[in-house]
């Protein structure tokens, strides 16, 4: 494994924090930067980076946790499918505890549903091979990072002639979500763009952020030095009155992205309108199976009449996902909604904003006297 220890060098981090402080002071006004990706949110909290920033620099979390943005209707559909005899649900672990309108996969599992946690779509394929008499439904949730692997799984299933492998696509795309946020009138001064997603799609799809909305953006890696450096780059753009998409994460992300992964992705999927928790319906923001692969879509295989889906009562995950509400401002946070008894997905997922706030920075902030 290549050492990344240089990217968490304490003296370099302190130096960068110093630059950030000076640039922020020179700007003379408070700024808000949004980290779009859930992995960034967790890294920022785990390394305690917010405590290193001056009070003028405010970080807000965006709609970058895949499980969190998945709408209740998707969860409800997955739950209904799990109740069908002979079905195995294969899913990433975070999804299991997300509450739907009336139940969760965790509760259905306790009642006898066959719900299995996998680490990749290939794990789901393996379950399908081993259980030819069962129908395996993989909950395909995630952004541009996960979708190519799922596409590879779909291609493999077709090649092997696996008849019992299905997917329920909940894939979402990042750039349309950022566009929707900006179009709705956002006060974000700059974006930390998700490094992993950008490895796949490159920096091109984000060009509308500076061009149409005049907002700086930086493609950012996940180590402390990456994040601090990207914040400095955003502040530099602001102080020099530049608006562009820059790449801080240049050891992995290139402007053109990963053409091979994109080719595989769009061989299997096409962009479609999608419902987001908190953001509503966004055009061209979801991935649906293309015509040739639609026979694998779980929606077509099982005939399910779904009742109306609703958000958990009192849950304000939608506003948290739009970056307009701090978790602590939600009446449920830390009282009736905790990681043990989560009401909203942002508290359930390991990448959720509420979980990060609860786990690493329960209000009031550390070092405050009791």
């Amino acid at each position, binding site marked *: 494994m290549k050492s990344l220890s240089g990217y968490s060098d304490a003296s370099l*981090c302190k130096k960068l924090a110093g630059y950030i402080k000076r640039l922020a002071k020179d700007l003379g006004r408070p700024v808000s930067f949004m980290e779009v990706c859930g992995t960034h949110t967790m890294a920022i909290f785990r390394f305690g980076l917010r405590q290193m920033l001056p009070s003028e620099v405010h970080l807000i979390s965006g709609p970058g946790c895949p499980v969190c943005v998945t709408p209740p209707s998707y969860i409800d559909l997955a739950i209904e499918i799990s109740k069908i005899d002979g079905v195995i649900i294969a899913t990433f672990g975070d999804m299991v505890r997300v509450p739907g309108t009336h139940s969760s996969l965790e509760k259905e599992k306790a009642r006898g549903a066959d719900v299995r946690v996998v680490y990749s779509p290939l794990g789901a394929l393996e379950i399908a091979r081993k259980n030819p008499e069962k129908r395996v439904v993989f909950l395909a949730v995630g952004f541009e990072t996960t979708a190519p692997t799922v596409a590879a799984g779909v291609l493999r299933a077709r090649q092997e002639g696996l008849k019992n492998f299905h997917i329920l696509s909940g894939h979402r795309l990042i750039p349309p979500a950022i566009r929707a946020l900006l179009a709705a009138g956002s006060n974000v001064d700059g974006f930390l763009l998700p490094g992993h997603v950008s490895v796949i799609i490159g920096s091109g799809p984000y060009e509308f952020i500076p061009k149409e909305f005049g907002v700086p953006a930086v493609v950012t890696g996940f180590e402390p030095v990456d994040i601090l450096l990207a914040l400095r780059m955003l502040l530099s753009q602001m102080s020099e009155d530049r608006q562009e998409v820059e790449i801080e994460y240049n050891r992995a992300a290139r402007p053109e992205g990963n053409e091979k992964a994109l080719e595989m992705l769009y061989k299997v999927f096409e962009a479609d309108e999608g419902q987001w928790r908190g953001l509503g319906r966004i055009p061209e923001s979801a991935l649906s199976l293309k015509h040739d692969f639609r026979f694998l879509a779980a929606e077509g295989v099982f005939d399910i009449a779904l009742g109306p889906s609703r958000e958990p009562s009192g849950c304000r995950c939608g506003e948290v996902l739009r970056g307009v509400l701090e978790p602590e401002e939600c009446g449920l946070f830390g009282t009736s909604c905790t990681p043990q008894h989560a009401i909203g997905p942002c508290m359930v997922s390991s990448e959720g904003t509420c979980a990060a706030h609860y786990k690493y920075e329960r209000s009031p902030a550390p070092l405050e006297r009791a």
Partner: protein
Amino acid sequence: MSIVHKDERILLAHGGGGSLMRGLIEDLILKRLNNPVLARLEDSAVLPPLPGGGEVTSGRLAFTTDSYVVKPLFFKGGDIGKLAVCGTVNDLAASGARPLWLTLSFIIEEGFPIDQLERIVDAVSEASGQAEVKVVAGDIKVVERGAADGLYINTSGIGVVAEGVNLSPSLIKEGDKVLVSGPIGEHGMAVIAARDQVELDIDVESDVAPLGGLVRDILDNGQAVHFLRDPTRGGLAAVLNEAASAAGLTIRLFEDKIPLKSGVKAISEMLGLDPLSLACEGRMVAIVEGKGAGKILKQMRQSPLGKEASIIGEVLSPLVARVILETKVGGRRTVDMPYGEELPRIC
């Protein structure tokens, strides 16, 4: 003639109280764990008077029990047998007791391979020798296939707390130092690596080991040691949150002082786990008088199981957060009580 054969499996009748069970106990258990108290095979162990001649001739008794359901039964660095001895011995040691006697009870699933049972009892024998404790009573129950997952163990232990030894979170005070006896998270990571689901080519061994000796060494300091705890389920994060809450104070940790093997660190990052909440089975956390901390650290490091001991933090007056961590890069965050259930059946 022996009635236990290598290729045999446990039958329901092995737990039936008849001659088959008697044979199993005599051939498999007593051969490995023989001592005069156990050998009587009576309804209860009648214990000798507290060992005289040594440092413990009187004192209060410490008594504890724990069940072991680790999955899988065998992992790098140990198995359920070694764990069942060390876990209970360490609970006694953390109370300041010198561990003396253990009970050993098995619940075994019908069909369990007898050679695996032999390996497990061998490990019990070796670990109890290392821990200087005697298994003085035991039990075997066999349940039908499917009613248990292979084999479970319960051990109970008795130890004696010497005069003058007094450990309690209520003794923790501002200015105390926090020590840990070695690198954290290795048991938890070894068990994760041994599970089929995660294919990881890593060289992480469980730290499972009996800590009675290490504790005896540092308790020579009498009043300077305020609190001891072995960070098992929930790891360092859980132990320190409990200690800080009970004391009504705050503990501040320094990330760069916490011993952590590179393998554990790398895999934690990959799987999104926090090493601070991974289980140890051979480490002791000590909260000690600030002034005596250097001396106690030295004693820990002289003990064979404490070579990599480190002072990892200090006790502050109460803040809102119970445990805070100064991160390596100069940031700061709360260390929360882990929620549990992320890694079921770790011990």
